[in-house]
């Protein structure tokens, strides 16, 4: 904790107001993380989720977005997914599962990292996994169907 605080202080010395706030204990290092966009994650359709997470509600299909996923997932609780794009200027990535009650799985903003995200997700039933990449203010998507034999969302 102490070490993290030091690092944060160093990084924000230029912004003296922030430095003062930290010094006064008003602002803890964890507040540097952007707030969770609750509306996007509670949205029941892809358009609402995209609007909330990426700021645009529709995406065009693109061959420049790659979604790597298994054809058949025996266990819906752990489905490995990789989304990648070689597109120039890719700034955000979101992952959606059409068949889940709330489609948005995760979203990432790249401020130095490349357009590559690999993670493991839960899927309730057989459906499309959608990878969405935001570049130049527009959304580009690719889909891959994953057959799920045992759903991963129930108890």
């Amino acid at each position, binding site marked *: 904790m102490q070490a993290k605080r030091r690092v944060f202080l160093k990084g924000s010395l230029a912004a003296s107001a922030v430095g003062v706030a930290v010094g006064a204990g008003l602002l803890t290092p964890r507040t540097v993380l952007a707030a969770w966009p609750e509306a996007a*994650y509670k949205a029941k359709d892809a358009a609402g989720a995209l609007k909330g997470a990426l700021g645009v509600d529709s995406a065009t299909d693109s061959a420049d977005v790659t979604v790597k996923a298994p054809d058949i997932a025996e266990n819906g609780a752990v489905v490995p997914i990789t989304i990648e794009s070689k597109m120039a200027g890719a700034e955000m990535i979101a992952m959606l599962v059409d068949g889940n009650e709330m489609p948005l799985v995760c*979203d990432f903003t790249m*401020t130095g990292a*490349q357009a590559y995200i690999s*993670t493991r*997700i*839960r899927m309730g039933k057989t459906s499309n996994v959608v990878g969405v990449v935001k570049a130049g203010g527009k959304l580009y998507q690719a889909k891959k169907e994953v057959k799920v034999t045992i759903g991963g969302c129930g108890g």
Partner: protein
Amino acid sequence: MATDTIKIRASVAGDVAEVKCLIKHDMETGQRVDKATGNKVPAKFINEISASVNGKEVLTGHMSVAVSKNPYLAFKVPAKSGDAVKVTWKDNTGDTDTAEEKIG
């Protein structure tokens, strides 16, 4: 505050490092029923995650309960051997952890 929940492995290929993180976290959905009590286990999941290299933030993200238990996350970032990569997560109950690792 949770401790020792994050494992980071980073490897460099050319001038890009692939950073793989494995986080120990239950990612409770809020739907699961505790068989002993019959009550639903309250939701507790990581919803914010960020990564930095040498103190500069390179990736921030959000997650939902649709991310598997003990989340795995891999990303690629331009970096060289010896750079310090730091990963921080925070869950919906305010629990948080940070880990730092040198890129090998």
